[in-house]
């Protein structure tokens, strides 16, 4: 029983971490709380569903295509909305309010186009294999989800830690002004970051869609709220923190649902968030990325 | 009036102030000078409650300031200005000064809601007083203008008037002539002398030696977080440690 729950927690936690990674990346680099990240996640799952049902695309290809679609959406949001606000030097809360508008627009559009009802992947799309290890039932799809989530996160980590690009990103996170003086193409990296973050969000959307096999226009809402809890828990802009906190939240949620009560599971995230904000607003693990002007 | 003893402040492992002690006497102009980065603004931030000291204490007219929030320090009679002017740009000059009177405008919620005569009288009086303060710094003719439209030098003067509106007994000025040309500096020097003559104690920090020497009655010198000298401007001018601190950095009296 416990090991079964641990598996569930691992699956959920890895998706939370993947989602929060993009969220925190945008905050770290662009200094924007992008509240449309949940809607982009939802668009990712509808895109995959649409490609699979309409064009009978194989799942792996649909995943990549969905990432491209949500990535482009993220890029579009940056170019059309965040960039003009940057140019105007708008205060912090303004871009956040704008992304709320984007979120509402996207989820209502999805509702208008696909309807409010729960949509599912067609029979046979999701690999149905199942292994039994000891007393744990492992669905093949769960292995796939955890594997894909960790692969994506590992690629991102390596890119940021090891490459020239990553160094440039970290320079921007410290100070965009200084970075541009060093000859770094700041605007280009803002666009790139928006694309990558949204693509990761879209991937998380596809994975959650597969895990629960349920896609709705409002599915971005709860995960956005959890993403907020995760990045505050992990420290805003802290990538490693987001990973750890995402896993942690997955475990806390699954365990409290299993051993306390199912209602409590949903409240756990927010209880944690409240607590952290009160006790240690810089997050459990790190420090707040203070950006110098 | 203001007694600082054994004051220390460190941020993480970095020690910014160490064992700083001096007294600011009542009346007159007291100057704290030192090269950039010596920790001068930190002293002001500690006095006004924006930062908490790591060691030592600060008392004002015999009252310990430890643990007081910034607004409580202001209410005890200490007002300050900022190195990088922080006026309320979207408000008129008059409103800016009236903000300073906040604590002295005592009318209750009921009086406010009913717009009682007492409430109206208090507001009218505050307006009158704000205009008077603006006239002290010769800005009364622009009372209804948005503060954002003022020149740099005038914004400074507005900041003085706003600080004086809190009815302080001690006024802290953080590098009042930073970023000003010599002509503006002279005007401002006069402005500060006027304020002092009206009975306000003035405590200013500055790294422009010449400005301080011409203005202050008493000067303390801060270098690398420690007080290295204290005395009259003449004593300071001839103090070998001070000369070394300034000459050693090749910016004697030059820094703008």
């Amino acid at each position, binding site marked *: 029983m416990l090991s079964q729950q641990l598996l569930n927690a691992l699956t959920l936690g890895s998706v939370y971490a993947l989602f929060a990674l993009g969220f925190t990346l945008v905050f770290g680099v662009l200094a924007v*709380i992008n509240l449309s990240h949940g809607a982009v996640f939802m668009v990712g799952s509808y895109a995959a569903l649409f490609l699979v049902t309409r064009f009978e695309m194989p799942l792996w290809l649909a995943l990549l295509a969905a990432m491209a679609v949500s990535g482009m959406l993220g890029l579009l949001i940056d170019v059309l*909305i965040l960039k003009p*606000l940057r140019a*105007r030097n708008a*205060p*912090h*809360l*303004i871009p*956040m*309010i*704008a992304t*709320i*508008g*984007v*979120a*509402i*627009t*996207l*989820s*209502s*559009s999805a*509702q*208008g186009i696909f309807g409010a009802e729960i949509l599912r992947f067609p029979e046979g799309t999701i690999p149905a294999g199942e292994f039994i290890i000891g007393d744990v039932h492992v669905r093949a799809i769960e292995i796939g989800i955890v594997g894909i989530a960790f692969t994506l996160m590992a690629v991102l980590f390596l890119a940021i830690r090891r490459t020239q690009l990553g160094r440039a990103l970290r320079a921007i996170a410290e100070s965009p002004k200084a970075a541009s003086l060093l000859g770094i193409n700041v605007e280009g990296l803002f666009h790139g970051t928006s694309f990558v973050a949204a693509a990761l969000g879209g991937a998380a959307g596809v994975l959650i869609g597969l895990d629960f096999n349920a896609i709705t226009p409002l599915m971005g*809402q709860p995960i956005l*709220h959890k993403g*907020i809890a995760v990045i*505050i828990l992990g420290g805003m802009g802290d990538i490693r923190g987001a990973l750890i906190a995402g896993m942690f939240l997955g475990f806390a949620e699954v365990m409290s649902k299993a051993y306390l009560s199912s*209602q409590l599971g*949903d*409240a756990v995230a*927010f209880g944690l*968030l*409240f607590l952290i*904000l*009160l006790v240690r*607003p*810089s997050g459990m693990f790190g420090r*707040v990325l203070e950006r110098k002007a | 009036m203001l007694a600082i003893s054994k004051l220390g402040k460190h941020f993480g492992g970095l020690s910014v102030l160490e064992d700083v002690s001096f007294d600011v006497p009542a009346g007159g102009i007291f100057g704290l000078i030192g090269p950039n980065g010596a920790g001068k603004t930190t002293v002001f931030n500690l006095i006004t409650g*924006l930062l908490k000291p790591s060691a030592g204490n600060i008392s004002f007219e015999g009252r310990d300031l430890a643990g007081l*929030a*910034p*607004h409580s320090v*202001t209410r005890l009679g200490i*007002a300050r200005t*900022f190195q990088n002017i*922080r*006026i*309320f*740009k*979207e*408000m008129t000059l008059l*409103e800016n000064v009236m*903000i*300073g009177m*906040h604590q002295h405008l005592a009318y209750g919620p009921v009086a*406010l809601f009913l717009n009682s005569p007492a*409430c109206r009288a208090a*507001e009218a009086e505050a307006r009158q007083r704000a205009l008077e303060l603006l006239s002290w710094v010769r800005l009364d003719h622009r009372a209804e203008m948005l503060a*954002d439209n003022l020149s740099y030098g005038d914004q400074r003067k507005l900041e003085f008037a706003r600080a004086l509106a*809190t009815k302080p007994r001690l006024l802290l000025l953080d590098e009042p002539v930073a970023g000003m040309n010599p002509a503006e500096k002279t005007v401002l020097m006069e402005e500060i002398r006027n304020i002092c003559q009206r009975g306000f104690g003035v405590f200013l920090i500055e790294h422009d030696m010449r400005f301080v020497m011409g203005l202050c009655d008493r000067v303390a010198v801060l270098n690398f977080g420690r007080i290295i000298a204290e005395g009259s401007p003449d004593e300071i001018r001839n103090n070998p440690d001070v000369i070394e601190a300034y000459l050693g950095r090749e910016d004697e009296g030059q820094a703008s």
Partner: protein
Amino acid sequence: MEWLDNYWSTYNTLVYSIGVHALLALSIWLTLACGLLSLANAAFMGIGAYVSALLSLQAGWPFAAVLAAAGVVPALVALIIGIPTLRLSGVYLAMATLAFGEVVRIIVLNLEITGGPEGLNGIPQSTQGWHILAILAFTIYGLARLRRSRVGRAFESIREDDVAASLMGIDVARHKLFAFVLGATIAGVAGGLNAHFTFFISPREYGFENAVDILTMAILGGIGSLVGPMRGATILTLLPELLRFLHEFRGVFNGIVLVLVVLFLPKGLWEPRRIKALFARGGRA
């Protein structure tokens, strides 16, 4: 006058809604005036709605007392959560209030006494037009007095620069708390009024979307005056009715309006000068 009666019976809900929405937009105006983004106002409305509905249904309190409770209970809740969270600033506060709204929704969804997801039915329709009008007039008058007083000036100075404000002797934390609690009170009363003319309430009406609706009204109208939020409330209540063909896409409309206003009308509709920066200093904790 029969046509008038018909007309009224068709449209009175709409007119009532405008009044309630105007109250909500004013409730968020209070915190915006201090430079705080609070996304908890839909939750406070919900608390007011549920408390008042339950007092009417189960305790049989008179309507005036019910409405008073609809204001007092959210105010107390705001006081309790406000004291610790208002230390936070900018984006942190916005996220804390967003989380709070979610907690309230989850609680209401899971309690038995609130009827869970089905909500509450058969609430007496005690709200009369003049109730809304009187409360709205009272609120506007009170806020207008506040705005022209030391408190209103203090709000504005806090929005521009809270450090400088505190050094002018203004107790920043208290003023923020006051704005937050008063906003919660107004939102709660609006919720109470609303519950007693819609007959039925459910947790769905008090979620994140509704918080955003309230925010959109205030921002669309402009927060530089009290007329602004009311103007925004009127427009956003009427437009969906006029644009019925958009019905499924109603939310799209709200979302696009929010984005466009932020991008092109940072001061809200018809609010050309004055308040240049909506929140002069957003930002860090």
